[in-house]
Protein backbone atom coordinates (compact mmCIF):
# COMPACT_ATOMS: atom_id res chain seq x y z
CA UNK A 1 0.00 0.00 0.00
CA UNK A 2 1.09 3.52 -0.71
CA UNK A 3 2.11 4.89 2.67
CA UNK A 4 1.22 8.37 1.62
CA UNK A 5 -2.48 8.34 2.36
CA UNK A 6 -3.69 11.96 2.66
CA UNK A 7 -7.39 11.44 3.30
CA UNK A 8 -9.69 8.80 4.74
CA UNK A 9 -13.24 8.67 3.41
CA UNK A 10 -15.82 6.54 5.18
CA UNK A 11 -19.34 5.75 3.99
CA UNK A 12 -21.95 4.33 6.34
CA UNK A 13 -25.66 3.87 6.81
CA UNK A 14 -27.86 1.77 9.09
CA UNK A 15 -25.73 0.03 11.73
CA UNK A 16 -22.61 2.10 11.17
CA UNK A 17 -23.03 4.54 14.05
CA UNK A 18 -21.32 2.33 16.64
CA UNK A 19 -18.38 1.64 14.36
CA UNK A 20 -17.95 5.34 13.80
CA UNK A 21 -18.08 6.03 17.53
CA UNK A 22 -15.38 3.37 17.97
CA UNK A 23 -13.18 4.96 15.35
CA UNK A 24 -13.54 8.43 16.86
CA UNK A 25 -12.91 7.14 20.35
CA UNK A 26 -9.66 5.51 19.23
CA UNK A 27 -8.16 8.42 17.32
CA UNK A 28 -5.47 10.31 19.20
CA UNK A 29 -5.24 14.06 19.55
CA UNK A 30 -3.22 15.34 16.62
CA UNK A 31 -4.26 12.56 14.28
CA UNK A 32 -2.54 13.77 11.13
CA UNK A 33 -5.14 13.04 8.43
CA UNK A 34 -8.56 14.39 7.57
CA UNK A 35 -11.40 11.88 7.89
CA UNK A 36 -14.57 12.42 5.92
CA UNK A 37 -17.74 10.64 7.02
CA UNK A 38 -20.51 10.48 4.48
CA UNK A 39 -23.44 9.06 6.43
CA UNK A 40 -27.10 8.67 5.63
CA UNK A 41 -29.10 10.77 8.03
CA UNK A 42 -32.48 12.39 8.50
CA UNK A 43 -33.01 15.21 6.04
CA UNK A 44 -35.02 17.52 8.27
CA UNK A 45 -32.86 17.21 11.40
CA UNK A 46 -30.04 19.68 11.08
CA UNK A 47 -28.79 19.65 14.65
CA UNK A 48 -27.64 17.05 17.13
CA UNK A 49 -25.75 14.51 15.03
CA UNK A 50 -22.40 16.24 14.88
CA UNK A 51 -22.70 17.07 18.58
CA UNK A 52 -23.23 13.41 19.42
CA UNK A 53 -20.19 12.38 17.38
CA UNK A 54 -18.06 14.94 19.19
CA UNK A 55 -18.78 13.35 22.54
CA UNK A 56 -15.78 11.16 23.40
CA UNK A 57 -13.91 12.16 20.25
CA UNK A 58 -10.49 13.71 20.76
CA UNK A 59 -10.49 15.19 17.30
CA UNK A 60 -13.05 17.78 16.31
CA UNK A 61 -15.92 16.66 14.10
CA UNK A 62 -17.39 19.35 11.87
CA UNK A 63 -20.05 19.72 9.26
CA UNK A 64 -18.25 21.58 6.53
CA UNK A 65 -19.62 24.64 4.83
CA UNK A 66 -19.42 24.84 1.08
CA UNK A 67 -15.82 25.31 -0.21
CA UNK A 68 -14.23 24.73 3.22
CA UNK A 69 -10.64 23.52 3.01
CA UNK A 70 -10.07 19.91 4.00
CA UNK A 71 -7.66 20.12 6.93
CA UNK A 72 -5.64 17.35 8.53
CA UNK A 73 -6.61 16.55 12.09
CA UNK A 74 -10.33 17.12 11.61
CA UNK A 75 -13.19 14.76 11.02
CA UNK A 76 -15.96 15.95 8.74
CA UNK A 77 -19.58 14.86 8.65
CA UNK A 78 -21.84 15.22 5.62
CA UNK A 79 -24.43 17.91 6.47
CA UNK A 80 -28.14 16.98 6.43
CA UNK A 81 -29.92 17.29 3.10
CA UNK A 82 -26.83 18.04 0.97
CA UNK A 83 -24.50 15.98 -1.16
CA UNK A 84 -20.90 16.29 -0.04
CA UNK A 85 -18.34 16.49 -2.84
CA UNK A 86 -14.58 16.84 -2.82
CA UNK A 87 -13.05 19.29 -5.29
CA UNK A 88 -9.72 18.72 -7.06
CA UNK A 89 -8.44 21.78 -5.16
CA UNK A 90 -8.96 19.60 -2.08
CA UNK A 91 -11.77 21.54 -0.59
CA UNK A 92 -15.39 20.52 -0.12
CA UNK A 93 -18.33 21.47 -2.28
CA UNK A 94 -22.00 20.90 -1.59
CA UNK A 95 -24.93 20.20 -3.84
CA UNK A 96 -28.70 20.07 -3.42
CA UNK A 97 -29.38 17.95 -6.48
CA UNK A 98 -31.98 15.21 -6.19
CA UNK A 99 -31.37 11.99 -4.34
CA UNK A 100 -28.95 9.69 -6.11
CA UNK A 101 -29.79 6.03 -5.62
CA UNK A 102 -32.43 7.20 -3.09
CA UNK A 103 -29.87 9.07 -1.01
CA UNK A 104 -28.84 12.61 -0.20
CA UNK A 105 -26.06 12.65 0.86
CA UNK A 106 -24.99 10.14 -1.76
CA UNK A 107 -22.04 8.08 -0.52
CA UNK A 108 -21.30 7.21 -4.16
CA UNK A 109 -20.78 10.85 -4.97
CA UNK A 110 -18.45 11.52 -2.03
CA UNK A 111 -16.30 8.46 -2.80
CA UNK A 112 -16.26 9.20 -6.51
CA UNK A 113 -15.21 12.85 -6.21
CA UNK A 114 -12.70 12.22 -3.40
CA UNK A 115 -11.16 9.41 -5.45
CA UNK A 116 -10.82 11.70 -8.43
CA UNK A 117 -9.21 14.44 -6.36
CA UNK A 118 -6.89 12.29 -4.22
CA UNK A 119 -6.31 9.15 -6.38
CA UNK A 120 -3.88 6.74 -4.64
CA UNK A 121 -3.65 9.13 -1.69
CA UNK A 122 -7.14 8.24 -0.56
CA UNK A 123 -8.25 5.36 1.64
CA UNK A 124 -11.96 4.57 1.27
CA UNK A 125 -13.94 2.45 3.71
CA UNK A 126 -17.49 1.22 3.34
CA UNK A 127 -19.38 0.22 6.50
CA UNK A 128 -22.67 -1.35 7.47
CA UNK A 129 -25.83 -0.29 5.66
CA UNK A 130 -29.16 -1.59 4.43
CA UNK A 131 -29.01 -0.29 0.88
CA UNK A 132 -26.68 -0.24 -2.12
CA UNK A 133 -25.26 3.29 -1.92
CA UNK A 134 -21.47 3.61 -1.88
CA UNK A 135 -20.46 0.52 -3.84
CA UNK A 136 -20.21 2.23 -7.23
CA UNK A 137 -18.44 5.23 -5.79
CA UNK A 138 -15.88 3.17 -3.93
CA UNK A 139 -15.25 1.14 -7.07
CA UNK A 140 -14.69 4.32 -9.05
CA UNK A 141 -12.20 5.52 -6.38
CA UNK A 142 -10.53 2.08 -6.56
CA UNK A 143 -10.10 2.48 -10.31
CA UNK A 144 -8.49 5.84 -9.66
CA UNK A 145 -5.96 4.17 -7.38
CA UNK A 146 -7.53 4.58 -3.95
CA UNK A 147 -6.87 2.03 -1.23
CA UNK A 148 -10.22 0.38 -0.46
CA UNK A 149 -11.61 -1.46 2.53
CA UNK A 150 -15.01 -3.07 2.99
CA UNK A 151 -16.39 -3.98 6.40
CA UNK A 152 -16.76 -7.75 6.60
CA UNK A 153 -20.48 -8.42 6.00
CA UNK A 154 -20.46 -11.01 8.79
CA UNK A 155 -19.27 -8.33 11.16
CA UNK A 156 -21.69 -5.64 9.94
CA UNK A 157 -25.10 -5.05 11.52
CA UNK A 158 -26.54 -4.62 8.04
CA UNK A 159 -24.79 -6.56 5.30
CA UNK A 160 -26.31 -5.06 2.16
CA UNK A 161 -23.94 -2.16 1.67
CA UNK A 162 -20.68 -4.11 2.14
CA UNK A 163 -22.07 -7.01 0.08
CA UNK A 164 -22.96 -4.70 -2.79
CA UNK A 165 -19.37 -3.45 -2.89
CA UNK A 166 -17.95 -6.97 -2.75
CA UNK A 167 -20.19 -7.95 -5.65
CA UNK A 168 -18.73 -5.17 -7.75
CA UNK A 169 -14.98 -5.55 -7.15
CA UNK A 170 -12.34 -7.04 -4.88
CA UNK A 171 -11.22 -4.39 -2.39
CA UNK A 172 -7.72 -4.36 -0.91
CA UNK A 173 -9.03 -5.62 2.41
CA UNK A 174 -12.21 -6.89 4.04
CA UNK A 175 -12.00 -6.14 7.76
CA UNK A 176 -13.97 -6.29 10.98
CA UNK A 177 -14.81 -3.08 12.82
CA UNK A 178 -11.89 -3.51 15.26
CA UNK A 179 -9.48 -4.17 12.41
CA UNK A 180 -10.73 -1.06 10.67
CA UNK A 181 -9.95 0.96 13.80
CA UNK A 182 -6.42 -0.49 13.91
CA UNK A 183 -5.95 0.16 10.23
CA UNK A 184 -6.85 3.82 10.62
CA UNK A 185 -4.56 4.15 13.61
CA UNK A 186 -1.70 2.56 11.69
CA UNK A 187 -2.04 5.25 9.01
CA UNK A 188 -1.30 7.83 11.62
CA UNK A 189 2.14 6.46 12.50
CA UNK A 190 3.09 6.39 8.83
CA UNK A 191 2.18 9.98 8.42
CA UNK A 192 3.68 11.88 11.30
CA UNK A 193 6.10 14.39 9.86
Amino acid sequence: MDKEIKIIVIGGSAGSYNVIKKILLALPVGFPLPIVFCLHRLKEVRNGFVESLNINSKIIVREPDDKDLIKPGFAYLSPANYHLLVEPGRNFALSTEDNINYSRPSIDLTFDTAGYAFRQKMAGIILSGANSDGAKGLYSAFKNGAYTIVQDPDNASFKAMPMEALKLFKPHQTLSDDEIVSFINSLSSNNYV
Partner: protein
Amino acid sequence: MEDISLKDIKRVIDTIYLTRGVDFSNYAFSSFKRRIKRFLEMNKIRDVNGFIEKIKDESEFADIFIKEVTVNVTEMFRDPSFWVVLRDKVIPSIKFDHSLKIWHAACSTGEEVYSMAILLKEAGLLNNAEITATDINKHVLKVATKGLYQIRNQEINSKNYEAFGGKGNLSDYYTLGDNTVQFDKQLVSNVDFLCHDLALDSSPGKFDLIICRNVLIYFNFDLQEKVLQTFVQSLSKDSYLGIGSKESINWCRSARAFEEVSFEEKIYRKTSDNL
Protein backbone atom coordinates in the same frame (compact mmCIF):
# COMPACT_ATOMS: atom_id res chain seq x y z
CA MET B 1 -20.13 5.06 -17.58
CA GLU B 2 -16.57 6.04 -18.41
CA ASP B 3 -15.19 9.12 -16.76
CA ILE B 4 -15.35 12.29 -18.84
CA SER B 5 -11.96 13.94 -19.31
CA LEU B 6 -11.06 17.44 -18.22
CA LYS B 7 -10.37 18.32 -21.85
CA ASP B 8 -13.83 17.23 -22.93
CA ILE B 9 -15.46 19.17 -20.09
CA LYS B 10 -13.61 22.29 -21.28
CA ARG B 11 -14.76 21.67 -24.85
CA VAL B 12 -18.37 21.39 -23.70
CA ILE B 13 -18.05 24.65 -21.74
CA ASP B 14 -16.43 26.48 -24.68
CA THR B 15 -19.02 25.24 -27.14
CA ILE B 16 -21.94 26.30 -24.95
CA TYR B 17 -20.39 29.72 -24.43
CA LEU B 18 -19.74 30.30 -28.14
CA THR B 19 -23.08 29.05 -29.40
CA ARG B 20 -25.50 29.94 -26.56
CA GLY B 21 -23.71 32.70 -24.64
CA VAL B 22 -23.96 30.88 -21.29
CA ASP B 23 -20.75 30.78 -19.32
CA PHE B 24 -20.20 27.68 -17.18
CA SER B 25 -16.44 28.17 -16.91
CA ASN B 26 -16.63 29.28 -13.28
CA TYR B 27 -18.98 26.61 -11.99
CA ALA B 28 -17.74 24.33 -9.21
CA PHE B 29 -15.90 21.49 -10.90
CA SER B 30 -17.18 18.32 -9.22
CA SER B 31 -20.87 19.03 -9.31
CA PHE B 32 -20.70 20.37 -12.87
CA LYS B 33 -18.85 17.28 -14.04
CA ARG B 34 -21.36 15.08 -12.27
CA ARG B 35 -24.22 16.88 -14.02
CA ILE B 36 -22.64 16.41 -17.46
CA LYS B 37 -22.16 12.71 -16.76
CA ARG B 38 -25.74 12.44 -15.58
CA PHE B 39 -26.98 14.12 -18.77
CA LEU B 40 -24.95 11.79 -20.98
CA GLU B 41 -26.16 8.75 -19.04
CA MET B 42 -29.81 9.79 -19.09
CA ASN B 43 -29.68 10.34 -22.82
CA LYS B 44 -27.60 7.21 -23.42
CA ILE B 45 -24.87 9.19 -25.16
CA ARG B 46 -21.54 7.37 -25.30
CA ASP B 47 -19.74 9.38 -27.92
CA VAL B 48 -18.57 12.69 -26.43
CA ASN B 49 -17.39 14.08 -29.78
CA GLY B 50 -20.80 13.46 -31.31
CA PHE B 51 -22.37 15.11 -28.28
CA ILE B 52 -20.26 18.24 -28.69
CA GLU B 53 -21.10 18.39 -32.42
CA LYS B 54 -24.76 18.15 -31.50
CA ILE B 55 -24.73 21.03 -29.00
CA LYS B 56 -22.87 23.06 -31.64
CA ASP B 57 -25.41 22.34 -34.39
CA GLU B 58 -28.72 22.07 -32.58
CA SER B 59 -29.60 25.05 -30.45
CA GLU B 60 -32.68 23.34 -29.05
CA PHE B 61 -30.61 20.41 -27.85
CA ALA B 62 -28.05 22.78 -26.37
CA ASP B 63 -30.80 24.56 -24.45
CA ILE B 64 -32.09 21.29 -23.05
CA PHE B 65 -28.55 20.54 -21.92
CA ILE B 66 -28.24 23.97 -20.26
CA LYS B 67 -31.50 23.40 -18.44
CA GLU B 68 -30.57 19.89 -17.30
CA VAL B 69 -27.00 20.63 -16.28
CA THR B 70 -28.05 23.20 -13.67
CA VAL B 71 -29.68 21.96 -10.47
CA ASN B 72 -33.23 23.20 -9.94
CA VAL B 73 -34.23 21.27 -6.84
CA THR B 74 -36.05 23.46 -4.33
CA GLU B 75 -38.80 23.33 -1.74
CA MET B 76 -41.04 25.76 0.13
CA PHE B 77 -39.76 27.06 3.49
CA ARG B 78 -36.62 24.93 3.19
CA ASP B 79 -34.85 25.21 6.58
CA PRO B 80 -37.93 26.57 8.39
CA SER B 81 -35.76 28.28 11.03
CA PHE B 82 -34.34 30.55 8.30
CA TRP B 83 -37.84 31.80 7.50
CA VAL B 84 -38.62 32.26 11.20
CA VAL B 85 -35.64 34.61 11.57
CA LEU B 86 -36.70 36.49 8.44
CA ARG B 87 -40.23 36.90 9.77
CA ASP B 88 -39.40 37.73 13.39
CA LYS B 89 -36.16 39.67 13.15
CA VAL B 90 -35.08 40.72 9.70
CA ILE B 91 -38.22 41.98 8.00
CA PRO B 92 -39.53 43.95 11.03
CA SER B 93 -36.24 45.84 11.17
CA ILE B 94 -36.27 46.96 7.54
CA LYS B 95 -37.22 50.62 7.23
CA PHE B 96 -38.49 50.87 3.71
CA ASP B 97 -39.67 53.98 1.88
CA HIS B 98 -42.56 53.24 -0.47
CA SER B 99 -42.22 49.55 -0.81
CA LEU B 100 -40.24 46.66 0.56
CA LYS B 101 -37.99 45.55 -2.28
CA ILE B 102 -36.91 41.94 -2.39
CA TRP B 103 -34.77 40.07 -4.91
CA HIS B 104 -34.92 36.30 -5.16
CA ALA B 105 -31.73 35.60 -7.08
CA ALA B 106 -31.84 32.26 -8.92
CA CYS B 107 -35.37 31.43 -7.74
CA SER B 108 -35.69 28.20 -9.73
CA THR B 109 -39.33 27.03 -9.92
CA GLY B 110 -40.39 29.70 -7.43
CA GLU B 111 -41.13 27.77 -4.24
CA GLU B 112 -39.16 30.29 -2.21
CA VAL B 113 -40.98 33.17 -3.87
CA TYR B 114 -44.32 31.71 -2.83
CA SER B 115 -42.92 31.06 0.65
CA MET B 116 -41.94 34.73 0.90
CA ALA B 117 -45.32 35.89 -0.40
CA ILE B 118 -47.11 33.75 2.19
CA LEU B 119 -44.83 35.04 4.96
CA LEU B 120 -45.52 38.64 3.89
CA LYS B 121 -49.23 38.06 3.55
CA GLU B 122 -49.44 36.65 7.07
CA ALA B 123 -47.48 39.66 8.30
CA GLY B 124 -49.85 42.01 6.48
CA LEU B 125 -47.06 43.29 4.25
CA LEU B 126 -47.72 41.64 0.92
CA ASN B 127 -49.28 44.75 -0.63
CA ASN B 128 -46.24 46.80 0.38
CA ALA B 129 -43.81 44.44 -1.29
CA GLU B 130 -42.20 44.57 -4.68
CA ILE B 131 -40.49 41.31 -5.50
CA THR B 132 -38.06 40.61 -8.32
CA ALA B 133 -37.48 36.91 -8.93
CA THR B 134 -34.80 35.92 -11.40
CA ASP B 135 -33.21 32.81 -12.82
CA ILE B 136 -31.04 31.94 -15.80
CA ASN B 137 -33.45 29.23 -16.86
CA LYS B 138 -36.60 30.32 -18.76
CA HIS B 139 -38.25 26.97 -18.20
CA VAL B 140 -38.20 27.17 -14.38
CA LEU B 141 -39.42 30.77 -14.55
CA LYS B 142 -42.45 29.59 -16.53
CA VAL B 143 -43.26 27.08 -13.79
CA ALA B 144 -42.79 29.80 -11.16
CA THR B 145 -45.11 32.22 -12.98
CA LYS B 146 -47.81 29.57 -13.25
CA GLY B 147 -47.55 28.43 -9.62
CA LEU B 148 -48.57 24.91 -10.62
CA TYR B 149 -46.72 22.20 -8.70
CA GLN B 150 -46.71 18.43 -8.33
CA ILE B 151 -48.90 17.21 -5.53
CA ARG B 152 -46.19 14.82 -4.33
CA ASN B 153 -43.99 17.76 -3.33
CA GLN B 154 -46.62 19.18 -1.00
CA GLU B 155 -45.91 16.84 1.86
CA ILE B 156 -42.46 18.29 2.51
CA ASN B 157 -43.71 21.82 1.78
CA SER B 158 -46.53 21.47 4.33
CA LYS B 159 -44.18 19.99 6.90
CA ASN B 160 -41.82 22.92 6.46
CA TYR B 161 -44.67 25.44 6.65
CA GLU B 162 -45.83 23.88 9.88
CA ALA B 163 -42.32 23.95 11.36
CA PHE B 164 -42.14 27.60 10.30
CA GLY B 165 -45.26 28.22 12.36
CA GLY B 166 -47.49 29.53 9.60
CA LYS B 167 -50.84 30.96 10.63
CA GLY B 168 -53.00 28.44 8.79
CA ASN B 169 -52.55 25.44 6.57
CA LEU B 170 -50.48 25.54 3.44
CA SER B 171 -53.54 24.20 1.63
CA ASP B 172 -55.25 27.55 2.32
CA TYR B 173 -53.05 28.91 -0.45
CA TYR B 174 -53.69 26.42 -3.21
CA THR B 175 -56.46 24.56 -4.99
CA LEU B 176 -56.19 20.89 -5.66
CA GLY B 177 -55.97 19.49 -9.19
CA ASP B 178 -55.47 15.93 -10.41
CA ASN B 179 -51.82 15.44 -9.61
CA THR B 180 -51.08 19.07 -9.10
CA VAL B 181 -51.79 22.00 -6.86
CA GLN B 182 -52.40 25.52 -8.14
CA PHE B 183 -51.12 28.23 -5.84
CA ASP B 184 -53.14 31.43 -5.52
CA LYS B 185 -51.97 33.82 -8.27
CA GLN B 186 -52.75 36.80 -6.04
CA LEU B 187 -49.68 35.85 -4.02
CA VAL B 188 -47.38 36.74 -6.89
CA SER B 189 -49.23 39.69 -8.37
CA ASN B 190 -46.41 41.95 -7.11
CA VAL B 191 -43.68 39.69 -8.44
CA ASP B 192 -41.64 40.34 -11.56
CA PHE B 193 -40.20 37.12 -12.93
CA LEU B 194 -37.14 37.91 -15.06
CA CYS B 195 -34.46 36.01 -16.89
CA HIS B 196 -31.13 37.06 -15.38
CA ASP B 197 -27.68 35.49 -15.49
CA LEU B 198 -25.69 35.99 -12.28
CA ALA B 199 -22.45 35.19 -14.11
CA LEU B 200 -22.82 37.83 -16.83
CA ASP B 201 -25.61 40.33 -16.18
CA SER B 202 -25.43 43.46 -14.08
CA SER B 203 -27.55 44.28 -11.05
CA PRO B 204 -31.31 44.38 -11.70
CA GLY B 205 -31.91 47.20 -9.16
CA LYS B 206 -31.68 48.26 -5.51
CA PHE B 207 -33.16 46.07 -2.81
CA ASP B 208 -33.83 45.86 0.93
CA LEU B 209 -33.40 42.11 0.99
CA ILE B 210 -31.73 39.61 -1.31
CA ILE B 211 -32.36 35.88 -0.99
CA CYS B 212 -29.90 33.68 -2.83
CA ARG B 213 -29.83 30.22 -1.34
CA ASN B 214 -28.10 27.12 -2.60
CA VAL B 215 -26.89 28.82 -5.73
CA LEU B 216 -23.36 29.90 -4.72
CA ILE B 217 -22.53 26.25 -3.97
CA TYR B 218 -22.56 25.59 -7.71
CA PHE B 219 -20.02 28.35 -8.39
CA ASN B 220 -16.25 28.44 -7.86
CA PHE B 221 -14.47 31.06 -5.72
CA ASP B 222 -14.14 33.58 -8.57
CA LEU B 223 -17.77 33.51 -9.53
CA GLN B 224 -18.90 33.60 -5.90
CA GLU B 225 -16.85 36.75 -5.42
CA LYS B 226 -18.30 38.33 -8.54
CA VAL B 227 -21.87 37.52 -7.54
CA LEU B 228 -21.30 38.86 -4.04
CA GLN B 229 -20.04 42.12 -5.57
CA THR B 230 -23.25 42.35 -7.58
CA PHE B 231 -25.20 41.88 -4.35
CA VAL B 232 -23.25 44.63 -2.59
CA GLN B 233 -24.13 46.98 -5.44
CA SER B 234 -27.77 45.92 -5.33
CA LEU B 235 -28.30 46.50 -1.61
CA SER B 236 -28.97 49.80 0.12
CA LYS B 237 -27.23 50.45 3.42
CA ASP B 238 -28.64 48.41 6.34
CA SER B 239 -30.33 45.98 4.03
CA TYR B 240 -30.01 42.20 4.15
CA LEU B 241 -28.65 39.17 2.35
CA GLY B 242 -29.68 35.57 3.09
CA ILE B 243 -27.74 32.61 1.70
CA GLY B 244 -27.99 28.83 2.13
CA SER B 245 -27.48 27.29 5.55
CA LYS B 246 -24.21 25.64 4.50
CA GLU B 247 -22.88 28.40 2.27
CA SER B 248 -20.19 30.81 3.30
CA ILE B 249 -19.10 34.24 2.13
CA ASN B 250 -16.47 34.68 4.83
CA TRP B 251 -13.45 34.19 2.63
CA CYS B 252 -14.78 36.61 -0.07
CA ARG B 253 -13.24 40.07 -0.29
CA SER B 254 -16.66 41.66 -0.59
CA ALA B 255 -17.75 40.02 2.67
CA ARG B 256 -16.22 43.10 4.32
CA ALA B 257 -19.30 45.05 3.32
CA PHE B 258 -21.40 42.87 5.61
CA GLU B 259 -21.91 42.04 9.25
CA GLU B 260 -23.42 38.82 10.47
CA VAL B 261 -27.00 38.97 11.71
CA SER B 262 -27.60 35.27 12.17
CA PHE B 263 -24.70 32.85 12.12
CA GLU B 264 -26.95 29.77 12.12
CA GLU B 265 -29.17 30.98 9.30
CA LYS B 266 -26.50 32.77 7.29
CA ILE B 267 -28.14 36.16 7.21
CA TYR B 268 -26.02 39.29 6.76
CA ARG B 269 -26.56 43.04 6.92
CA LYS B 270 -24.77 45.37 4.55
CA THR B 271 -22.95 47.98 6.60
CA SER B 272 -20.76 49.76 4.08
CA ASP B 273 -19.92 50.20 0.43
CA ASN B 274 -16.22 49.87 1.00
CA LEU B 275 -14.83 46.76 -0.58
